[in-house]
């Protein structure tokens, strides 16, 4: 069996799910012997590669950039995993939805400002009007809830996925775990 190609990506999340991934501690060493981490904010800098077996997605879809990125990731990934509550439900980032993108931007860049109040719009990607969970935008194969999912949960889920089993999430975690 050839080594599985794993990737992790970040959309609108707090990086806590990635930190929980690092909390696998020494098990990371073992994992990297059985699979290649081909793309991740933690270890690699290249463009998102072709033919990835498993991609963990942290965060909700919040900007135009997130939207483009997740579509590209979906195209190039066999098993797409919504990793953590933000990806699964929209969680904290989606709390801006009742206010809308504009009111949220106004607070930060027009009200809470000493100098040059203005909403930044040059070069940076515009926000989507509504923050959405990943499966509202692309097809998702596996959901790992938790804010963040514990390192044990991530480890168990990855083991299963690497060995072509479907992880039984109900046994491992729950929302807000």
């Amino acid at each position: 069996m050839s080594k599985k190609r794993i990737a992790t990506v970040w959309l609108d999340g707090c990086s806590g799910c990635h930190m929980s991934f690092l909390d696998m501690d020494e098990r990371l060493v073992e994992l990297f012997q059985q699979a290649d981490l081909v793309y991740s904010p933690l270890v690699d800098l290249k463009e998102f590669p072709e033919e990835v077996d498993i991609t963990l997605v942290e965060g909700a879809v919040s900007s135009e950039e997130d939207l483009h990125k997740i579509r590209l990731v979906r195209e190039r990934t066999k098993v797409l995993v919504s990793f953590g509550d933000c990806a699964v439900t929209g969680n904290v980032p989606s709390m801006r939805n009742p206010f809308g993108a504009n009111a949220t931007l106004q607070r930060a860049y027009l009200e809470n400002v000493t100098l040059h109040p203005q909403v930044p719009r040059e070069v940076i990607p515009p926000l989507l009007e509504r923050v959405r969970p990943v499966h509202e935008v692309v097809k998702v194969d596996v959901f790992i809830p938790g804010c963040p999912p514990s390192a044990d949960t991530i480890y168990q889920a990855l083991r299963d996925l690497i060995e072509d089993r479907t992880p039984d999430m109900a046994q491992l975690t729950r929302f807000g775990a």
Partner: protein
Amino acid sequence: MAQTVTIDPITRIEGHAKITIHLDDQGIVRDARLHITQFRGFEKLCEGRRFTEMPALTARICGICPVSHLIASGKACDALLAVRIPETAEKLRRILNLAQIVQSHALSFFHLSSPDFLLGMDADPAKRNLVGVIQTNPQMARDGIRLRQFGQQIIEWLAGKRIHPSWIVPGGVAQPLSPEKREQMLAGIPEAIDITQRAIEWFRSIIPQFSEEAQTFANFPSLFLGLVTETGALEHYDGVLRVVDSAGNVIADKLDPNDYQEYIGEAVEPWTYLKFPYYKPIGYPEGIYRVGPLARLNLIDRCGTPLADEAWAEFRLLERGAVLSSFYYHYARLIEILYALERIQQLLNEPDILDTHVQAMAGPNRSEGIGVAEAPRGTLIHHYRIDKDGLITWANLIIATGHNNLAMNRGILQAAKHFIKGDRIQEGMLNRVEAVIRCFDPCLSCSTHAVGQMPLHIQLLSPTGEVLDEVRR
């Protein structure tokens, strides 16, 4: 003549931190800009929530330093209650904060930066990462993993969970420390101190190899700002704000953190989601200052623990006046880990540390509260207003990484001046800029993505905005 390079829209969106470099009519570098492309919106999205939710909610600003937000938020909530929290609760919060400094600095030094030191700034990026360290220097990788783990473990033992624990509550903490956990923590400290001292020694030994980096990595005069104790020692939980200039002179001292709006202003630029705090008495953008480990070690008169004081004294010999090279943020981080471990040990040995009275009970007594603490990356400010039912009506947050925004941009400009020849970006620019940014250890998830290793995209622009050259990773 200048050639326009077309940018493929797919790869363009890969860049989370994007940099543009602007030339003037003479073809000389005029400006360099770091564009932060993510916006979180916490100042608004918490509106209408009960203030008691704020610690747990704002912890979700950042998974690398959730404890900092728990602490600053907890303190802002204490101010709303208008209570003095039990002394034991304050000590336990301090331990939590220090444990986070250990884990976060360990992540920055070992997981993210040591690949540059071990494999060289220009090594293949596919190898220049944690996995590369595991392969070339397994001892160092194990040390780093172990040290971060110890910090995370203390957080878990105290607060029940490593990331986003809900243990800090308005008025104190939810659970006292158990005698068993105290023993476990104390037992781990000697090994952690050994690892840290080993790393400090190793870092000192490689400084000569990196003299060029030390000279050119965001090395410029600026102010430094942060908390110190009333008597000028290192402080991360409470205390007063101090500002020093590049000669190391104290220019403002014993500032009440509650008055932060009098001396910290925030400016907006149209090309980034990260605002630009500046020192108000001097103005924008001349009121540039740095925060975080380097700043803190420049501000203080001493650390306040024996081993860290020795290491600090040696550190201050690096330069006359304040240490100005941002390359030494790395060094400062290691010294702070040492301090944090010694201080945790002292606090655990305090006679009242196991006291079970750890929460002051009250309802909201004030309509406005401010909490200020030192996060691993610098001064963190939470400021809330509530209505009579205790629901948030307004919030202002100044995140540690934000304070360094002007300095990061200036550091990139410095590198650009060095690496732009004519209308071309020279070889090495990408690695250099990345390493300069990494000195600051920007916790960009507070405002953007990337734990320091970022898919960078640099564009060189003519005065009319034409793309002359670009590099990306």
